[in-house]
């Protein structure tokens, strides 16, 4: 009896990503990306953000469609709950970024994933945004991500996937390190 190894397929084209990395030494400007979104106030705390274009690989780029995101606050804040809160979008971004990274790293390491479930939680003290206690920051006091992963790999290999994904994650970096932010009025 012979067994044939099934090729690992997590749906990530790692060769394409590594191909880009190989091109960078000769044309580093390709790596300069700009991400964009526009936000329009609707009413109350409800606004709508559109994401359509970005710049990268040395030219203007476009998603295949314009993606819209409603942003609001829940009824408990006397708002209309037309969408999730801005801070929840941060959790969405972190979970999405880390999970994409896990898939890519698993593909690169020839680890077949069967299921990857993340629960992202963040602690926040409302004293901050309500201006009720100047010693409390507005943002999260901590963020926790819990993964349940079913994969053809040992526990150490799965932990290494998750650790490597954090190491290469943009959103993880954005959350764990200071970023310069400028806001101006046109």
């Amino acid at each position, binding site marked *: 009896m012979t067994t044939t190894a099934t090729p690992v397929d997590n749906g990530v084209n790692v060769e394409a990503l590594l191909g880009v990395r190989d091109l960078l030494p000769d044309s580093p400007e390709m790596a300069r990306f700009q991400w964009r979104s526009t936000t329009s106030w609707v009413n109350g705390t409800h606004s709508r953000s559109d994401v359509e274009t970005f710049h990268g690989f040395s030219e203007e780029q476009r998603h295949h469609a314009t993606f819209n995101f409603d942003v609001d606050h829940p009824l408990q804040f006397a708002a209309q709950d037309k969408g999730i809160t801005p801070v929840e979008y941060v959790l969405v971004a972190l979970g999405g970024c880390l999970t994409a990274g896990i898939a890519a790293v698993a593909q690169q390491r020839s680890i077949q994933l069967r299921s990857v479930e993340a629960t992202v939680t963040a602690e926040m003290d409302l004293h901050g945004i309500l201006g009720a206690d100047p010693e409390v920051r507005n943002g999260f006091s901590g963020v926790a991500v819990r993964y349940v992963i079913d994969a053809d790999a040992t526990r150490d290999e799965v932990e290494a996937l998750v650790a490597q994904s954090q190491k290469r994650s943009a959103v*993880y970096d954005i959350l*764990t*390190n200071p970023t310069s932010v400028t806001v101006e009025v046109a």
Partner: protein
Amino acid sequence: MARTTTVVVGAGHCGLAMSRCLADRAIDHVVLERGEVADAWRTQRWDSLRLLTPNWMTRLPGFAYRGDDPDGYMTAPQVARLITGYAAGSGAPVLTGTTVTAVRPRSDGYAVLTDRGAWHARTVVVATGACAAATLPQPAQDLPDGITAVSTAVYRNPAALPDGGVLVVGASASGIQIAQELHRSGRPVTLAVGEHVRMPRTYRGRDILWWMDASGLLDERYDQVPDLVRARHLPSMQLVGTPERATLDLNALTALGVRVVGRLAGFRDGTALFSGSLPNVCTLADLKLGRLLDGIDAWADRAGIGGDHPPQRFPATAVPASVPLSIDLRAQGIASVVWATGHRPELSWLHVPVFDRKGRVVHDGGVTAAPGLYLIGLPFLRRRKSSLIDGAAADAAELAAHLAAHLDTRAGRAPLDRRFDVDRRAG
């Protein structure tokens, strides 16, 4: 202009290993050294520093340690004496007190300008070391006023720093050693920790480097590792050479009372900001150590070694539940910063187009694209041990072979090239 076949720039262990290999091939050469032989070991090492590698690993072409303490670790003056003795024993043609100010391509080789005259050489070997200048992180330029800052190249001992707390930035070998020494001197120490390579000093009864050497890990070649960029940028192993052969890792430092925080992300209004990535860099290092020990155990099983000492696993790095993300330096009495953030070569005198956009020399195992120009002594130049003294012998032997072949080709090809020119003109 004096002429020689090869100029070797730098009389440290790498330059002298190269000199020995060139001499073995009867290649006429000179070793130019700006200071004394083993200069960096005399002038750029802190007082308590010892080699990270045990004495038996101090091997150079034609030289092996024969002292009475093979498992000990040399102090910097001992290393300087050893290298000086090696230079004398090899009869290396070293010109000390000769600073190379420029190397430029010339027909059939290079012009090597020095503060004591110029040389023409057909080939040049750059052996000025990977640690000629301290690398400071981006936040260094925003250091608050009134804070004393020293790099590991300048740091000598705790007494040289002002009274008060110290922020040590970087947790590789130098950072953890200096953090421990400063803590013992009675100063409150905060250690900013980014990616690091955790390492026990001994494993299963032997020096960890014995296992890495014996199992062939240190011989792993640059053209065989899956990710060379990553391998070349790995921080140095968290090791210290002490008579007690003690392990110095983050758990040991935390137990002493050193405060461990995340990677230094910046300074803002006199406050140091630290990354929230500390748990992950510790997990990465713990997992990496686990993989190393798994590999060593598997090799030991195959080799039938280590039966008296069963496999060990070390406790995970303990990260406190609450790690400060920012520290107001003045309010917390921190008066100085030690940059233990790595080193880089200093090659501003090398006027040959072999640099990439970030100013690093592009090379293939020490062979540059400029014919006859070589480098030695950089991390993972040709193998994992290239940055260790013990790595110089194999690298120098291979580069000397390449250099000799280059000279042969040059000598043989000149008439051929002319004949092709004639053919092309005829066509």
